[in-house]
């Protein structure tokens, strides 16, 4: 066998992988694991951002409330009144729907 033929044979022999049915499965699993990790990291970051924003707002609100107790009291009462009104309206509309169905 001449050197050219030996080179061709050696190139053909070395490193020729057999078709591995497990390889595609390993790729899909690795890709899905990577996606899951990314999603988890994103949701942690999102939750952290929301928590930080909420804490900042709460701190600002408390600071403002300490300086304006009367206005804060009025605000709390107004919010409570508004919530009661909304609750009452929803309750009444639910009752009305039940009555109309009959």
């Amino acid at each position, binding site marked *: 066998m001449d050197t050219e033929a030996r080179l061709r*044979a*050696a190139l053909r022999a*070395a*490193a020729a992988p057999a078709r591995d049915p497990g*390889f*595609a499965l390993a790729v*899909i699993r690795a*890709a899905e694991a990577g996606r899951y990790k990314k999603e988890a990291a994103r949701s942690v970051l999102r939750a952290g951002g929301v928590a930080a924003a909420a804490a900042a707002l709460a701190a600002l609100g408390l600071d403002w409330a300490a300086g304006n107790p009367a206005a804060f009291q009025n605000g709390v009462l107004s919010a409570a009144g508004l919530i009661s009104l909304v609750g009452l309206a929803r309750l009444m509309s639910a009752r009305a729907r039940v009555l109309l169905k009959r």
Partner: protein
Amino acid sequence: MTPHDEARLIAAARKGDSRAYAALVDAHQQAVRGFLRRFNGVWADADDIAQEAFVTAWAKLNRFEGRSSFRSWVSGIGFRLARDARRARGRAGARDAAWLQTQEVAENEASIEDRIALERAMAELPDEQRAAVALCLGEGFSHAEAAAILKLPLGTVKSHVTRGREKLLRALETSDGH
């Protein structure tokens, strides 16, 4: 696999169809793994890099414009990953004769001495030359495909293949003399 089938599978994989992507991986794994094994020298590492290349390719599938074949595109991703890994590891670590013990092909096709001589000579080639030789002589990619994969001019790839082949032939002749 026809180009039409491949385009259909790529479109489905872009939408997240894992079965379609598995079919693409299955169709091209031998070429990509073969190239990376020849380029890297360490089979287990090369297979890990091939896996990473296919995973990266799926994540970036929306960027695949179809100017080259899917096989060439994944091979390019694998080449860059393998080159970075080799640089991080150092050249000395690339040599590993143990792979010859776990041949998956017919033993009488090439002598063990020739395969060792080839492996050593391949490890001595510069990265781009070794990649060009592995693609064109090892896996049967065209010079144009290799140029697209390696992001090199066509003339440079042709020259790498010619010079690399000469070095490999010389290495086999030298090993013959011992």
